[in-house]
């Protein structure tokens, strides 16, 4: 059969696609690939459907063995790629003979890599998506050594040549455009004005649920009391009692009880957030 055997699972490797939007009212997070552009590119390079399931790696890559000949593509965080021990192209369609190992190395910059295979990963969908949801435990489990990942039949489109791959932006600073959120009035005007000047850092506590910040000037509440639980959107910037913003990413809870000071539009900015390592400077700028 066509499939990929997990030899080295890496620090945190999950199956991701475009997620399962539309079920938030049942308590189901959206989930899906965090760096949406890198994930889409990996599938495009292989002539896959835009929602074909691929792997999302975290920092230290993954090693897979092909059971039958397949074509793969590695995008996202730039890294060394080897096939059967020999250097191979990053950001391009790469042939993998039967029995050969694909080694996706440690990220040289950025954080999350995408490994797509022609035909897509054919794990069983849950509510229409093959994404692993770390918050609620839906979808396939986190990769472990010895797992066999089935591969679907290739689509009609051929694998494409890459014509210049977008690299994640310079990792020294993450600029997040912020639109007004529903609970900005829960904070003092002085601390809201200070938000534009404050430099936060990406906290090592960050994960697929949220990008946590540290080291900046905490926001100050203008009103006390608890906020009754309310619906949360992707990119919502929630502020817990410590005053340090948390940016909600794909596996975020569907409701939450801390005020949302603003919302980062989905797309390029959240893709960059997915690639920001702990310690990277974070600044919020007013979205136009």
């Amino acid at each position: 059969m066509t499939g990929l055997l997990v030899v080295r699972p890496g620090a945190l490797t999950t199956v991701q696609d475009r997620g399962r939007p539309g079920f938030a009212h049942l308590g189901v997070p959206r989930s899906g690939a965090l760096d949406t552009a890198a994930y889409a590119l990996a599938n495009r390079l292989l002539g896959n459907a835009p929602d074909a399931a691929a792997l999302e790696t975290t920092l230290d890559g993954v090693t897979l063995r092909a059971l039958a000949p397949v074509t793969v593509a590695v995008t996202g965080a730039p890294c060394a790629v080897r096939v059967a021990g020999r250097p191979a192209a990053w950001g391009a369609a790469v042939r993998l003979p039967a029995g050969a190992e694909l080694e996706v190395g440690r990220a040289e910059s950025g954080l999350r890599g995408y490994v797509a295979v022609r035909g897509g990963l054919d794990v069983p969908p849950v509510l229409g998506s093959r994404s692993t949801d770390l918050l609620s435990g839906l979808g396939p489990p986190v990769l472990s050594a010895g797992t066999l990942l089935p591969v679907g039949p290739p689509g009609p489109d051929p694998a494409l040549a890459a014509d210049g791959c977008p690299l994640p932006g310079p990792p020294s600073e993450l600029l997040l455009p912020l639109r007004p959120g529903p609970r900005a009035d829960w904070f003092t005007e002085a601390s809201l004005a200070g938000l534009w000047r404050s430099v936060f850092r990406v906290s090592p506590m960050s994960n697929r649920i949220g990008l946590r910040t540290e080291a900046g000037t905490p926001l100050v509440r203008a009103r006390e009391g608890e906020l009754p639980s309310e619906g949360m959107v992707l990119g919502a910037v929630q502020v817990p009692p410590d005053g340090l913003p948390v940016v909600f990413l794909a596996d975020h809870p569907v409701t939450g009880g801390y005020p949302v000071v603003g919302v980062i539009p989905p797309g390029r900015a959240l893709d960059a957030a997915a690639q920001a390592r702990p310690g990277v400077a974070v600044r919020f700028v007013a979205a136009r």
Partner: protein
Amino acid sequence: MRTLVAGGQALLIEVGSAAEVAALHAELLRRRDAGELGPVRDLVPAARTVLLDGVRDPAGLGARIARWEVPPLAPSQGPLITVPVRYDGPDLAEVAGLWGVAPEAVAGIVGDTEFRVAFCGFAPGFGYLTGLPERFHPPRRATPRTAVPAGSLALAGEYAGVYPRSSPGGWQLIGSTDAVLWDPDRDPAALFAPGVRVRFTEAGR
């Protein structure tokens, strides 16, 4: 009713009570199904709000909704399901003490209540059920449990809920059920979807 823009694609509508949320949610579903809302990806009721996510022009939609007359919800509106429960929870005696009744009386008080699923969250298929009169609202436990068994019927504040799977939790556990709260292969996957009315009967009676 207050409408709050939440970024470029979402609108949060705030009302004064769980009953008003239920009425607004029903009205939003009715108008969405009639094609009056335009595209909406997610419609998420919560404690005092309904979120509309994936909409065009949240400010314009909010201005329209603010002019609506939302009719109150009829008591019998929404599907009714019956869930058999064993009253064997570890906090049953404590809850009975808070209510000033014998533990055997808890089943009757819960059984006489028609609950409504106000919203979901915390875990797939976990519904926040309203309906218990205010004098029966117990506080959360001072120390949450690290593992609450799946199927536990629990109370906290104005809400009742049943844990769809084993998870940590700080609610008061009064009983347990064999009902399947969450099954992604079932349609709908969640037994307790917003707007569903729930009756708890005593199992084996």
